[in-house]
């Protein structure tokens, strides 16, 4: 039965090995589910957040996965709107990753809010003065779009495509993908931006507050651009991780290099704008609010090293590596730089949530410390386990990487000399041997 569900021509591990891979993740999922149950049934006192430290590990990691999941919208935008056909090789993977990231983030938000049954309130009675309203609307709509984009991937399953109606619906839906890609780009622009804008409008938090550009603070644009930079790098890293785990080549090297180049281009723009923004904040915005900027870095463990690491080590350096066509040829540099980009985004989101809330803003304030409870960690582990399971199932039973068959043939291609040594099945006309000699020498 399992074999009949696996796409024809794709090599997958045995069902027993697959189960062995899935079981630990299921165990983690169960632990996470229990933690979520505790938070929802008994209350948020299970977390270490309080009224002062209201954004903890959940919001920090939510912002991170939403930024990393941006590969879905940005890859879709490049493929369907700008017609970069080479990205067809990774679009399915980007969509699955995007779906996991966004659905996981929404799930954790539901736990964080603590009243999932009243989630609809945010649509019916929205606070029109809150950036989070825009985020909620766009996030929900985009999750629906991602689910729609995921449908054709599922319908590519070998058994489902035997049902003519499903196959035709998948075909027709696929033709309309540019519409979804356009909507996805529009929605992502706004919710990625508004997540950044959310911090930029915090007048009471001068560490995060930024001047407005038009109607939005500068963090709005920085979040959009940084997400567009991190998304392709994360797609690149997850793809190579899947390659390592499955020991298969799944996409051609030029696709990786193109993703790296896109990521590098967006990152250098981000680093430039972030540097300008930081300089304006240091010299104008922060002193204007009565706080010399370097006071924020004199407290406890958050020194200027964190700013340097974010902009130079995890920003400028990977950007320069990814922009160099010579360095992109080397996979160690390429994936190393991709890893730095994703780490940089993670650090940025950490700074915006945890550091912002930890720093004192009033004369009688103290530096706040926060460490997540096991329930908070386990609830997020639930998302990771759910993501791994969903990705594994999709990879096993659908075609995520269209180049896999072709590259599988190249991998498995035996040298013509080896063929010549084995003569059990073919007799050998001399003409064919000569022809194959020619073929071998041209390889």
């Amino acid at each position, binding site marked *: 039965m399992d074999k009949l569900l696996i796409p*024809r*021509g794709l090599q997958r591990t045995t069902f027993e090995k697959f189960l062995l891979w899935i079981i630990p993740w299921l165990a983690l999922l169960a632990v996470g589910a229990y933690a979520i149950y505790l938070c929802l049934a008994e209350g948020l006192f299970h977390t270490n957040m309080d009224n002062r430290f209201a954004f903890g590990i959940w919001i920090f990691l939510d912002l991170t996965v939403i930024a990393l999941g941006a590969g879905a919208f940005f890859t879709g935008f490049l493929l369907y709107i700008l017609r970069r056909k080479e990205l067809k090789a990774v679009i399915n993977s980007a969509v699955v990753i995007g779906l996991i990231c966004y659905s996981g983030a929404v799930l954790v938000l539901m736990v964080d809010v603590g009243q999932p049954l009243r989630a609809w309130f945010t649509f019916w009675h929205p606070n029109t003065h809150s950036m989070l309203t825009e985020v909620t609307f766009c996030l929900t709509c985009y999750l629906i779009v991602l689910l729609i984009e995921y449908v054709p991937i599922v319908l590519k399953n070998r058994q489902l495509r035997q049902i*003519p*109606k499903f196959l035709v619906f998948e075909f027709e839906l696929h033709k309309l993908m540019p519409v979804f890609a356009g909507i996805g780009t529009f929605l992502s622009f706004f919710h990625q931006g508004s997540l950044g804008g959310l911090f930029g409008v915090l007048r009471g938090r001068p560490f995060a507050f930024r001047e407005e550009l038009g109607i939005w603070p500068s963090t709005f644009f920085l979040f959009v651009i940084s997400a567009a930079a991190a998304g392709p790098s994360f797609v690149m890293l997850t793809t190579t991780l899947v390659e390592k785990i499955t020991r298969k080549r799944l996409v051609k090297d030029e696709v990786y290099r193109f993703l790296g180049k896109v990521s590098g281009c967006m990152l250098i723009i981000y680093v430039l704008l972030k540097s300008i923004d930081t300089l304006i904040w240091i010299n104008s915005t922060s002193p204007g609010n009565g706080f010399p900027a370097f006071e924020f870095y004199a407290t406890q463990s958050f020194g200027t090293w964190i700013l340097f690491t974010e902009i130079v080590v995890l920003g400028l350096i990977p950007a320069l590596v990814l922009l160099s066509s010579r360095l992109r040829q080397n996979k160690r540099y390429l994936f190393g730089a991709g890893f730095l980009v994703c780490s940089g985004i993670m650090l940025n989101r950490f700074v915006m949530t945890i550091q912002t809330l930890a720093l004192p803003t009033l004369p009688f304030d103290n530096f706040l410390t926060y460490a997540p409870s096991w329930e908070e960690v386990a609830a997020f582990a639930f998302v990771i386990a759910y993501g791994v399971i969903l990705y594994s199932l999709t990879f096993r039973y659908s075609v995520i990487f269209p180049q896999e068959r072709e590259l599988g043939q190249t991998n498995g291609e035996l040298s013509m000399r080896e063929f010549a040594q084995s003569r059990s*099945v073919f007799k050998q006309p001399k003409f064919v041997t000569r022809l194959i000699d020619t073929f071998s020498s041209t390889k």
Partner: protein
Amino acid sequence: MVPWVYEFHWTAFHVTFLLIFFTVFVTVAATIIIALRRTQQDEQQHRMESIQWHSDFEDLAPAMKVCRHELNGDVQHRVCDNEFDCRSCTLHPVFSARKKKGSLLQYEVYGFSMPPYRLYHRGHTWVQQEDDGTFKVGIDDFGSRIIGRPHSIELPPIGSHLSVNGRGILVRRSDSTIRLLSPIDGEVIGHGNSEKGWYLKVRADNPERATTHLLKAEEVPNWILREMERLQFSFATSGVGATLADGGELVPDFHKHFPKADWDSVLGQMFLEA
């Protein structure tokens, strides 16, 4: 926020926000409805089979989509973008007009019986025109040897309509079920069997254009050579390892030599089914 809810105010911000939100919502909903509507239309217009083939063709590796004129040496490299239907190809007539006449026609091509009076489909079926203008359809020798001994062969019922690259013959083996592509458009008017050497008799929709897309005898040797190469590669991916020799003739009892091969995968690749 919504007009009949108490927080709503007739301000530019509220109206703009709602307009944008509902535009997005309506666009998503309309796109889904359009996809469903088109699915229904495709079903009514019997386009299911061509879509099935389109989907299968799209999933083929580029090396499997090479143009027949690349195989013939008319062009250095060309991937077919007409899904192996040369009737809609603008370049096919140009290449065909350049064809040299007088090639030596062979009955046997690398050990396979490929009579020159038949026309061959890339999915390993053949077509032979009868005196009465009808066409016989069968499985070529290469395809037959790969299939081996099937458990059953399911033929489309008499009176049913075939379309080029749609489902023709369904072959069931213990380890796989494979559909063979129809090489011709037309109505099924008779059934044959393996003893007769053919499986279907078809009355073509348009006899003049019925066979334009099929390979002629002089194209067969190069095509078969490429198919042997494809077969080698398909075995390489099915976990068999270094087993095939350097070309030559395919022995008739082919299956016995590869009991552990992933035949489902090999057959899928050779008969162009994803």
